[in-house]
Every structure is written in structure tokens, then in C-alpha cells.
């Protein structure tokens, strides 16, 4: 075919298209919709089932934590930050408290650091298990939900056993972790923090988690229909992922083995062995598999940490009244969903001058308009779900 033929044919196709043009329909997906994980709103311009363009609208859940923290003391802020990404509450506490400690020049005792590490990894397992359960549900498979959530409950029980809270542990203190309830001055040096038998319970729960991962491997990952829905859908190339500031499993699934636990550890991660899980193609299936394998790695880390945890005090010596000297710092950690950071500016005194929260889901969500363009509506659900965001984390 000559260029002219191609052009003529194209012209006639365009003419037909214009003549039979169907008006695009503007479809609101959310804020009240089963698959938007809360109150995300997408204004989608659809042609039949195909999305021409999509515009996310956020802010329905804005709680103003950044502003609130300007009028709270550093101690009070710990109760706020674990409510940002509530499925992994503990993990979002740690970078904040580390940032405050850095500003104050306090080094928490080793045991406290190891407890933080264990609880962070448990939070990662819990968060990923939520994804393991909700993502197949979005594709219409209802059973994995119940299986994965059942085992997540075991993990939450562990977190609750130490901290007293399933979702909002509020367990970190400047200079360490919270001493056991009722532990007075004389008990501070002893390991009164962790309930008796907790480590054994952790080990048996981790065995359970490995079993659950194997179950999910056969029930979901190997399922032909699941593959048909996810393989090759919503591909994010590595360079795109970096441009949009994706982090965490979403970035690693695109083939960038970047993990802040290796790059910039502020907990004793160098002392445990674990692999950074990454995948090649960056489609929805890879994002699922990466998270599934991360659960395994996290469980391995927990098991190692349980063996290695030293005894010692829980809290370093800090003044009764937390006052932070003038200065600023940015501390980021590997939240289950990706990079989670706090930029704190202190002008001295009991309250921060300004605190900026670099929340993971907000950055991960920014790729939505690009990636959803030209997708089908069912793929919208598949792609959106695979990014694993929490609306509280987006709106803050």
C-alpha cells in the first residue's frame, strides 16, 4: 500500500468516525463507589467501556495533619501520624520519631530499635495481606478475602499484644518505645515490654503466614483467570515509574530494585538478611507477586529479628519535657506502600514550626491519569487496585 492509500483510508475512517460519533459520557467513579477504597473520586470520560481520559479528585478525606501538627507537641503528634496510613499504622510512626530523635541528637537503645523493626515488618505483613485480600476481590474473586484477612488478624493480634492497639499502636516514644504499662522507674532496665510467650507466638504465626503465602500462590497467582485479568494490564515502565515518583512495591515491580531498608536504613536492617523483591514487566500481576514475596521476606526478617533481639533498656535518657533544638531534617522510611517521609522544621520549643508529610499513596496515585488513559472500565479497577493506596494516606 502506498502512503497515499494509507492516508486515504485513514481519512475515510476518520470521516466515518465523525459521522457515527457517539458522544462521550462523563462518568463519576467515586467518591462513593465500591472499588475506590474510600472516598477517591475519578471523573472519567468514557466512550462505551473505554476510558478516554480520567481526572482524579482528592481531598474528600483531608484531615489536615500537617497543619494540626503545628499546634501539637512532638509527643502528641505520635498519636496523629499512625492514623495517616492506617493499615500500617506502626510503619508510619517510625520515620517521624526517628526524625525527632535526630533533631534532638538522641540515640534509642538497641532493644527499642529491634522492637521497632519487628513491629514495622509485622505492619508490612498486615498491610500486604490487606492488599492480598482486597485485590482479588476487586477482580471478582471473593474467597481470598476471607483467607487472607483471617491470617492478618493473627498478625494484628501480635501487634496488639505488644502495643495494645491493633491499628493505632502509638507505641513509639522519643528515645525508644513505650515501657510496659505500669512499669515504674525500677523496672525500666528490664525487658518488661514484651509479654511472655510473645516471641513463640510470633514464630508460630510466621509459619502460618508462610502457609498462607503458598495458598495465595495457588489460589490467586496461578489462577488462569487472574492472569488473564492482570498480565500485561497497566504496565508501568521503569522510567515512567521514576518520573511519577512511584516508590515501594509499585516501583520494584517495574524492575527498579530500590528499597530504603537497604539504601537508607535507620533501623538495624543491615544486621538481618533479606532480598529486595523486584519484577520485570511492571504490570498488575507483577505488583501482586512482588507484594506476595515481600510478605515472605518480611516474615523471614521477623524470624531473624526474634532470634537476634538483644536485651537492654527500652528508652534512652530523655528530658521529661521534649524540646527540640532549632534545625530541620527529612527522614524517610520504607513503608509497606513505599517511601514515607517527614520533613520537620523546628524553631526550637515543644512544637514543630512546620511538618511536611511525604505520604506514599499520594505520589503513587499521581500516575493514575497517565496509566488509565485508554483502558477499559474493568481494567480501571484492576489497575487502580494494584497501586494499593489508602485514602487517608493520600489526603492526610
Amino acid at each position: 500500500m502506498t502512503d497515499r492509500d494509507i492516508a486515504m483510508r485513514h481519512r475515510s475512517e476518520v470521516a466515518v468516525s465523525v459521522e457515527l460519533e457517539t458522544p462521550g459520557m462523563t462518568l463519576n467513579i467515586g467518591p462513593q463507589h465500591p472499588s475506590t477504597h474510600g472516598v477517591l473520586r475519578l471523573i472519567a470520560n468514557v466512550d462505551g467501556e473505554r476510558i478516554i481520559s480520567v481526572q482524579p479528585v482528592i481531598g474528600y478525606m483531608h484531615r489536615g495533619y500537617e497543619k494540626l501538627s503545628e499546634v501539637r507537641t512532638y509527643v502528641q503528634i505520635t498519636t496523629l501520624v499512625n492514623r495517616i496510613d492506617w493499615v500500617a499504622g506502626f510503619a508510619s510512626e517510625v520515620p517521624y520519631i526517628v526524625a525527632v530523635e535526630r533533631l534532638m541528637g538522641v540515640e534509642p537503645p538497641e532493644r527499642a530499635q529491634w522492637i521497632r523493626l519487628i513491629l514495622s515488618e509485622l505492619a508490612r505483613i498486615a498491610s500486604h495481606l490487606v492488599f492480598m485480600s482486597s485485590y482479588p476481590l476487586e477482580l471478582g474473586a471473593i474467597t481470598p478475602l476471607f483467607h487472607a484477612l483471617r491470617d492478618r488478624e493473627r498478625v494484628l493480634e501480635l501487634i496488639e499484644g505488644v502495643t495494645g492497639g491493633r491499628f493505632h499502636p502509638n507505641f513509639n516514644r522519643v528515645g525508644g518505645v513505650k515501657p510496659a504499662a505500669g512499669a515504674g522507674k525500677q523496672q525500666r532496665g528490664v525487658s518488661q515490654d514484651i509479654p511472655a510467650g510473645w516471641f513463640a507466638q510470633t514464630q508460630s504465626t510466621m509459619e502460618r503466614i508462610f502457609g498462607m503465602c503458598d495458598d495465595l500462590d495457588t489460589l490467586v497467582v496461578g489462577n488462569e483467570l487472574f492472569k488473564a485479568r492482570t498480565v500485561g494490564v497497566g504496565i508501568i515502565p521503569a522510567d515512567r515509574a521514576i518520573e511519577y515518583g512511584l516508590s515501594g512495591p509499585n516501583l520494584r515491580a517495574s524492575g527498579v530494585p530500590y528499597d530504603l531498608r537497604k539504601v537508607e536504613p535507620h533501623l538495624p536492617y543491615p544486621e538481618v538478611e533479606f532480598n529486595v523483591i523486584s519484577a520485570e514487566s511492571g504490570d498488575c500481576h507483577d505488583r501482586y507477586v512482588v507484594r506476595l514475596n515481600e510478605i515472605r521476606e518480611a516474615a523471614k526478617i521477623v524470624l531473624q529479628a526474634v532470634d537476634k533481639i538483644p536485651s537492654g533498656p527500652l528508652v534512652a535518657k530523655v528530658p521529661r519535657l521534649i524540646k527540640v533544638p532549632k534545625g530541620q531534617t527529612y527522614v524517610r522510611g520504607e513503608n509497606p506502600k513505599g517511601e514515607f517521609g517527614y520533613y520537620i522544621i523546628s524553631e526550637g520549643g515543644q512544637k514543630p514550626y512546620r511538618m511536611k508529610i511525604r505520604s506514599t499513596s499520594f505520589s503513587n496515585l499521581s500516575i493514575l491519569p497517565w496509566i488509565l488513559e485508554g483502558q477499559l472500565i474493568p481494567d480501571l479497577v484492576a489497575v487502580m487496585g494494584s497501586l494499593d493506596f489508602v485514602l487517608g494516606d493520600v489526603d492526610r
Partner: protein
Amino acid sequence: MDLSAYLSIALMAMLGTGFAVVALWASKRLAPNNPTPEKLAPYESGIVPLQEPAERFPVKFYLVAMMFVIFDVEIVFLFAWAVAMDDFGWAGIAAVGLFMLLLLETLGYVWKRGALDWNVAQRARYRVVVAPEPPVEEVA
């Protein structure tokens, strides 16, 4: 023509309709009824709709209907022959075989033309606003 076999079908249709109508009527009487404008608004994920649903739908969907008509009508011919197959012998099988080959050929043609590809990449019209002018061929 004996239609007695259809008597019960008519009876069931009447019974079913009667049940449904009575149930809907009873439900209307028994249930509370206090409509508010918000309640009556069409559901659109909690947002006041910006726009009416489209009146026209993409051609693709009509294509399915057309293909259905083609294939389903053909199937009906097959039923008629299948019942009376013994009366026609090999001649009937040959004729129907030819007919089926034609059907398969039609399917193959439609397939090759792309009418059975539902997840085609975006159409050109979304990207190209104005079609390029055909290049004028130089006369040597």
C-alpha cells in the same frame, strides 16, 4: 393445530404476572414512601450527575447484535434439519456440511476483519483531530 400443550404456559405467564403485579402493589402499600430529591436522583457515586447518560452508544455494540442475528438464525436451520436428519441421509449431511463450512468461513472473515477483537487499542480519532491531507502524487 393442537395448542393444548401451550395452555399451561399461558397459565403460568398469567400467574407469574399476577404474582409480580400483586407483590409490587402490596410492597408499595406496605412500605414507607417518603421520596426526597436526593433519594430520587440517579446514582452516580454520590455526585450530582454532570450530564445525562449518552443517547447513542458505540457502533461496536450493534455489531454484536448483527452477528447474533446471523448466527442464531442459522442455528435455527440446523435444529430443523437435526430432528429430521434420518429423512435426508448423506445428501442432507453434505448440504448441511457445506452450509456449516460457509458459516465457519463467515466467522473467519469477521474474525479477520477485527470485528471480534474487543480490546483494540485506542481509535485514531482520539489522538488525531484532523486527518492529514493525502499527499499529492507528483506527475513525472
